[in-house]
């Protein structure tokens, strides 16, 4: 019993982390139709920048906020310089983000080297929270789950309860008509891109605290984001949540029972979904 509760909590933790990264990815895709292959690089960049800020100021929270802001700015710059010039050419946009990811990944390796970094979050986050049956669970992992819930709720409110959210939804539906109605769609796109990138940066700090930061994490989280949104449905927030949950559970239960094929399992899950519903479980047809 204890074992299964632990496994489920672990699956939730991983799913939360995947959701944090994939939600921004999905958001960007939903409105801009851009597959941002640099999303993993944004995650890693956020983790390192957050680490620097946190160790310089001594505040983990500042690191978290700083990383989100810094990566949002980098996202802004990337959108303005690289993506916008390509107009609506989705394929070339995807390609240019691959190039950007390669460059950022290499610069990070050059600057931070191959060693592993780990945050020292406030002592209170780093201990164990007592819980019934399973005795206790690492607090930082509960923080991961909590942040995902907060971010998910925040995004939901933003999209469904605010004017900006209406704009985003309308932009996803029909960009041309929205601009013909007098809205500067480019500004909305930019905002969403920055928001999505910032979420990746935020996830970098949270992921870097729960796990660790090292080269290669960029590709890992890009892939997980891809799988999550392919399963859940591109551009759908609920889809990202569902996809993240499925992958989280498949991965952790797989790791416990068939460790050798755990990762393969998640990818096969994806191929199966694709064969039946190419647009993803909650994607629009």
């Amino acid at each position, binding site marked *: 019993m204890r074992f299964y509760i632990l496994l489920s909590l672990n699956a939730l933790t991983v799913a939360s982390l995947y959701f944090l990264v994939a939600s921004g990815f999905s958001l960007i895709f939903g409105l801009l139709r851009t597959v941002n292959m640099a999303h993993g690089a944004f995650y890693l960049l956020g983790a390192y920048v957050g680490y620097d800020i946190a160790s310089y100021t001594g505040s983990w929270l500042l690191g978290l906020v700083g990383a989100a802001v810094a990566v949002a700015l980098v996202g802004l710059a990337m959108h303005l310089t690289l993506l916008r010039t390509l107009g609506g050419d989705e394929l070339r946009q995807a390609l240019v983000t691959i190039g950007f990811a390669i460059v950022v990944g290499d610069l990070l390796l050059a600057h931070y080297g191959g060693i592993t970094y780990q945050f020292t979050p406030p002592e209170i986050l780093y201990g164990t929270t007592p819980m019934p049956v399973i005795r206790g669970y690492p607090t930082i992992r509960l923080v991961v789950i909590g942040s995902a819930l907060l971010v998910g709720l925040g995004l939901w409110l933003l999209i469904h309860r605010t004017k900006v959210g209406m704009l985003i939804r309308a932009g996803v*539906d029909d960009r041309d008509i929205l601009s*013909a*109605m007098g809205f500067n769609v480019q500004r909305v796109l930019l905002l969403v891109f920055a928001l999505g990138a910032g979420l990746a940066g935020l996830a970098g700090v949270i992921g870097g605290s729960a796990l660790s930061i090292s080269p290669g994490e960029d590709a890992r989280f890009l892939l997980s984001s891809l799988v999550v949104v392919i399963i859940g449905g591109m551009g759908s927030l609920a889809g990202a949540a569902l996809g993240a949950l499925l992958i989280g559970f498949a991965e952790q239960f797989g790791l416990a029972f068939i460790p050798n094929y755990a990762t393969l399992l998640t990818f096969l899950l994806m191929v199966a979904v694709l064969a039946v519903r190419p647009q993803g479980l909650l994607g629009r047809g």
Partner: protein
Amino acid sequence: MESTNALVVSGLEVRRGALPVLHGVELRLDGPSLAILGRNGAGKTTLCSALIGLLPAGRGSIRFNGVELAGRKPHDIAGQGVSIVPQGRRVFPSLTVDEHLRLMQGRRPGPWTVERVYAVFPRLAERRRNFGNQLSGGEQQMLAIGRALLTNPRLLILDEPSEGLAPKIVDHLLEVLGGLHRDGTSVLIVEQNLRVGTSAAERVAIMSGGQIALVTSSRELWEDEGLQQRYLGVSAH
């Protein structure tokens, strides 16, 4: 306030991709309304897209009340008081009726408010919580018109508004459009349906092969079967 707007299009050439569609369109609207009639493929929808900036004008000019619109971005053109009810309505599937209207409210000052739209289209008020993709064709058309009116336009462009609608609804729409000039809004209506086009406006421009072939009064066109046959391939009688 009577409508005193002037739209002057001259020498307009527009391409769709590599394909030239408009070959020097000359058009003038001053007064409350103008209908553009033409067969399928005459370039009517392309003209609409160019007027609101969704397709770039290759050559020529589009002046609205003395302001050059060619080369401007769609949102900028909208800011000049030009709004559109697009072909196929194109309401936002993931916004509710109410959200459509609230989103538009207060963009430009003018007489239109959400409440007034609801008053004009009581059906919309009943369905205010429904999403765009849950509406019937007629309801979608009311919403698209309401959405456009909330920008308080000085020029309202309607692209095939009668398409697929029951005659009763069309009549209701025509009635609403007929009253717009009292708020200072001119109407440019693009139609395939001769009856709708001629009832909506006093003057008619006939489009053919990417050009304006003829401008005449609605009454004249309605009565001249030869004209109808020649340009529209239809006959009203």
